[in-house]
């Protein structure tokens, strides 16, 4: 099953130099077409899920939620390549541009949050 979403394709052509907090220029990012199936595989294999959860939900002590509704690609890629916080840096030596795009495709594919009514026990 392929997840090459319309939302993703709309931002793929962009070439952006993101300026991150602290004034450090990020690497220029060329967003490639992403494969969500491979992205999920890489997301799990490369340990993204350990801090951000298997569906990008995040966890306060370890890392913010990534999905649904991930950051724009350029901001996402900038954070992965040159993190501004305690996150380990994933340079192109250890994570290719294609794998990065695939991970992003996986995050984009994650469905929206459930209806709060289905989680009514949270109100107790």
């Amino acid at each position, binding site marked *: 099953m392929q997840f090459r979403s319309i939302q993703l394709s709309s931002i793929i052509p962009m070439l952006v130099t993101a300026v991150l907090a602290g004034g450090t220029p990020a690497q220029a990012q060329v967003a490639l077409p992403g494969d969500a199936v491979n992205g999920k595989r890489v997301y799990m294999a490369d340990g993204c899920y350990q801090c951000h*959860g298997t569906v990008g939900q995040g966890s306060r002590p370890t890392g913010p939620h990534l999905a649904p509704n991930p950051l724009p690609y350029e901001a996402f890629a900038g954070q992965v390549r040159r993190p501004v916080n305690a996150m380990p840096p994933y340079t192109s030596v250890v994570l290719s541009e294609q794998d990065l795009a695939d991970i992003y495709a996986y995050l984009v594919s994650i469905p929206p949050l*459930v209806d709060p009514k289905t989680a009514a026990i949270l109100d107790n």
Partner: protein
Amino acid sequence: MSKRRNDSVLSRRGLLKGATLAGAAAVGNPLTSRAQDAPSTARPSGPVTPAPNPAMESGHPPDRPIIQGTSGSDYMADVIKSLGIEHVACNPGTSFRGLHESLINYLKIDWHTCTHEEASVAMANGYAKIEGKPILVLAHGTVGLQHASMALYNAWCDRVPIYMMVGNTVDATKRAPGGEWFHSVQDAAALVRDFVKWDDLPGSLTHFGESAVRAYQIAMTPPMAPVLMVLDSELQDGPIPPHEKLVVPKLPRIAPLIGDPGGVAETAQLLVSAANPVIVADRYARSQAGIDRLVELADILQCAVIDLGGRMNFPSRHGLNQSDRARAVVGQADVILGLELENFWGATHAFHDNIERYSDTVIRPGTKLVGIGAAPLYVKANYQDFQRYQEIDLSIPADAEATLPYLIEAVKHLLPADRKAAMAARGEKLAAAHQQAIKVLKQDALYAWNASPIATSRLAAEVWEAIRNEDWSIGGISSNNRPLWPQRLWDMTKHYHHTGPAGGGGIGYGAPATAGAALANKKHGRLTLAIQGDGDLMYSPGILWTCAHSRLPVLYVMHNNRSYHQEIMGLQKMANRRQRGIDRTHIGVTLDDPFIDYAGLAKSLGVASFGPISDPADLGPALKKAVAVVKRGEPALVDVVSQGR
């Protein structure tokens, strides 16, 4: 008691005098007579059946008593009873067999068999944090104490009173060859002296009595801490010397140290004058009174309270509870009052674990810092649990819970009438922020609501739903598994609702500490539970058998993330920093291949079990069944395959 003891000595002493077998006197000394025979030099021509050795078959040598009318360890048991100690947690050992026998037969104390000494001490730790007093832990002075040492260190860092006795055979001529030699030691307590508050090796029973009461008093005086008594096996096993007039020394009521009145008044002045005072509490509340006093102080001041979770300090749903937005609140503070806050530096700084480690202060210049706590009253040098030095303006070395009533009175006295409206407005603003934080929290909990492995937010929500109508208590908490979701989602108001994590960060605390908490909670009819880390349980899984054997009503809900999760993240950081990728960083930190069957493990140890559960829809029904088991007075375990954090 002493009268009864003296009567007993007198009545039994006559028996002791005649305590030799009449028949034994008639037996000669075959060893002596054989030794006087000239050795034969002639070799036998073939196999020879050894001649009978009468020494091995004739029972006791002459003139050696074989029964005794009094026992030193009976007196020890009387002293232990006088301290109000109700339970023993213990893995058995020869070096304290005398006291063991006295406790079960003479005192008939409630006994809890543990399968590891680390579990014994952690169980005592969990009990003390709920009940406010120790149980007795017994162990070998060598091998047992080595097993117990990590749990003692956790209790030391956590300011918890542990009352421990270990056996040792001091007189080398009394040690049986072999095992008793490598189970004996010159100075048993040396192993743990860096992290016990006091220890002793009594040379007589009178010495024991005085030191046993002294040890209890020292352990229970803030800062509370473990103490250790090393008991000579001869002193335990043998009769009470005829000349020794034994009494049980009196234990005084222990009144904790209250802060200096001048310092308390100065603190009150700072608090009432501040625009944004903040109270940060860590190992503060020992009892419900501690929580109630902090609520009263915060309500008067209408100030923010941050509960760091070393204990249950402040109601989770109180509008002034700002624990979820601690950094923002601390950043705005002009006065910060730390209550039993040993890591003041950590509360006022952000630390960055990067290639170059560095830190930033997060407080405004000129913020006044005040600390009330007992930790400065007793500090040791070797282990570095005292944290980085923080410059503060006023340190009041005292017990914070006992000091708070005086601080409250001082604040009331100084509270200017014209400030009350401003304070009320401050409180309303904080309450609104609290409500907003809860709204965000519930939104966050929706992420991965239906995911498998099961999200920690869903896990916490389902457990809350299962126990919220019970009188419940979270027992021990795995060191790096602070109950973040429960503290945020659950309505916590009682001091026993949770008691904080392992003080020294030593894994293996959570499961046995929960068992100890269950022992304390049992007589109050409370349901004890743990959100139990898988790595933590595997340090001492035998505690599940102890729960079954001791009929402890306790619910273990496994947070089974199949890893030592904290360490995975640390390895990933190293690997990526060095640009080696993290595809191999699971090595050494995951608990898979094969997966551990915790439900099967629990079942084999006599504990009702459910799971493994991977589908969140199955969790609620399984928890309901497990709670029913626990309400019958038995332990249960639900294995939940979970997300990392």
